[in-house]
């Protein structure tokens, strides 16, 4: 009995320590955003009164408003484009499946094996030749269509009852009508999951914009905060405020839509 209780206690201690370590860096980031650089370094763990001052520093030395807008616009465009293209394809691969389409789907899945590092140079050359450097189009294009999202929508179309389709056809509804008026409303949760994955991916994307966004005014948030540490003197308070403003949107999305988020991750293994 004693031994059992000790094991249970150890379990809880372990879990609490793990949970604390997981949360702490993010809490520290937010607290630090309100403190002076010196306070951040010496490990002050209480919120300070320097938030306004840090904001002024950031506004004076960086174009953080512009970067936030760029990140937001790019991520929204990427999400809408991806969802449109991939959901239509996923639906097509499942509802109209035949031998040819099944084979093609298999081929498309192979693209998941290609690491981005292996194709970034040709991609960069393509974008450069098309005069698309520094544009949202260039940011979005390589990731509009991903085998993963097509696969996700194909799996969900599998649960779209065949009777519904047949009934709609008898009613005289066109194939496009069935997709727009019946499939999309029913599959809202799949769309939510896909939207979160795509938005987060685009919001956090770093290597691709690092290569293509060469003008200061087209820089996104990851590029901005990355450039802040390259300076000679780092103002840690202002730095943490910049990082916080980059992380907060995704944390809010995460906390509100945690279920879809986990589902999205897990659905990649079905």
């Amino acid at each position, binding site marked *: 009995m004693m031994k059992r209780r000790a094991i249970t206690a150890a379990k809880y201690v372990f879990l609490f320590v*793990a949970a604390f370590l997981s949360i702490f*860096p993010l809490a520290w980031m937010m607290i630090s955003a309100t403190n002076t650089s010196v306070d951040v370094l010496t490990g002050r763990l209480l919120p300070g009164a320097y938030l306004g001052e840090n904001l002024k520093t950031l506004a004076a030395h960086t174009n953080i408003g512009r970067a936030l807008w760029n990140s937001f616009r790019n991520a929204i465009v990427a999400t809408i484009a991806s969802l449109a*293209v991939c959901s239509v394809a996923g639906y097509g*691969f499942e509802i109209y499946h035949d031998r040819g*389409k099944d084979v093609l789907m298999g081929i498309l899945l192979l693209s998941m094996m290609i690491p*981005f590092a292996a*194709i970034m140079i040709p991609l960069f050359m393509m974008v450069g030749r098309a005069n698309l450097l520094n544009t949202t189009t260039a940011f979005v294009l390589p990731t509009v269509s991903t085998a993963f999202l097509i696969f996700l929508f194909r799996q969900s179309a599998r649960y779209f009852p065949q009777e519904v389709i047949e009934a709609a056809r008898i009613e005289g509804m066109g194939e496009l009508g069935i997709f727009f008026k019946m499939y999309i409303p029913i599959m809202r949760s799949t769309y939510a999951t896909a939207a979160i994955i795509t938005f987060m991916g685009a919001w956090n994307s*770093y290597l691709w914009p690092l290569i293509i966004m060469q003008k200061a005014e087209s820089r996104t948030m990851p590029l901005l905060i990355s450039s802040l540490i390259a300076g000679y003197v780092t103002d840690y308070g202002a730095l943490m405020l910049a990082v916080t403003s980059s992380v907060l949107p*995704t944390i809010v999305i995460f906390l509100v839509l945690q279920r879809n988020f986990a589902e999205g991750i897990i659905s990649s*293994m079905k």
Partner: protein
Amino acid sequence: MERVMKLKTRRSVVGWFFVLPATLLIFGFYFYPIVKAFILSFQTGVGVNLKFAGLFNYKRLLADNLFKKSLGNVFIYLVIQVPIMLMLALILAQLLNDQNLKFRGFFRTALFLPCATSLVSYAIIFRAMFALDGFVNAILMNLNLITRPINWIGHPWAARLLIVIALTWRWTGYNMVFFLAGLQNIDDSIYEAALIDGANGLTRFFKITIPLLRPIILLTAIMSTNGTLQLFDEPMNLTNGGPANATLSVSQYIYRLSFQYSPRFGYAAAISFVIFALVAILALIQMKVGDTR
């Protein structure tokens, strides 16, 4: 009959239109570039002035110490960090899978939270926390664990350790979610039968949980391998590849070759093709090893 056939063909054609845009985009932005990278890897020159040079780039690669070093660094992470992280994720998932656990929702959310942080952001948070005159050193000094501050990004192994710590923080919860989903699919009756047979907790863990989770362990191992081989954001922002290239990753080296020095696209493409081959080979090996049933 003929009408039915016509309808079928018509629907099949409609289907092709549904899948066409996505297919073209994948061919244009995945398959075409990888073929292009392969061709590029046989060319040399600066910028876009390229000419064919046979196997020159691949020969050069074999003698390139910096390439070997970056590959070695990535393998150090792979061998040390991935097993630790997956073990930790499995243990946490096992603990969280207990229906009677108190604060279950809180633990799950907390452990999963790092996944919501972008790679650049967490790399910078860790860099600030582990600065020479920073918070972590102050704590360690106050606890009398060290007498002098550790120069985390100034010492090769300390810098590597820092990357390992950071990666583990960011990705353990992510992998835990997969394990949790897998554990929830295991039928309770299997455990009950084992309990009746007198199997204790550890035996159950090693004889039931791990074998039944094998496909998911395999999946997470492949994903982690893939991710580690392509590591970029963290060494770039946390250690800047230093000190003396001790944390330089292969992706970072490709980036430097292509975009920081005079652009050697051909040579960089050769290296990137090696990554592609490694990802494929390691995935195949893991599938072979993990599939022994």
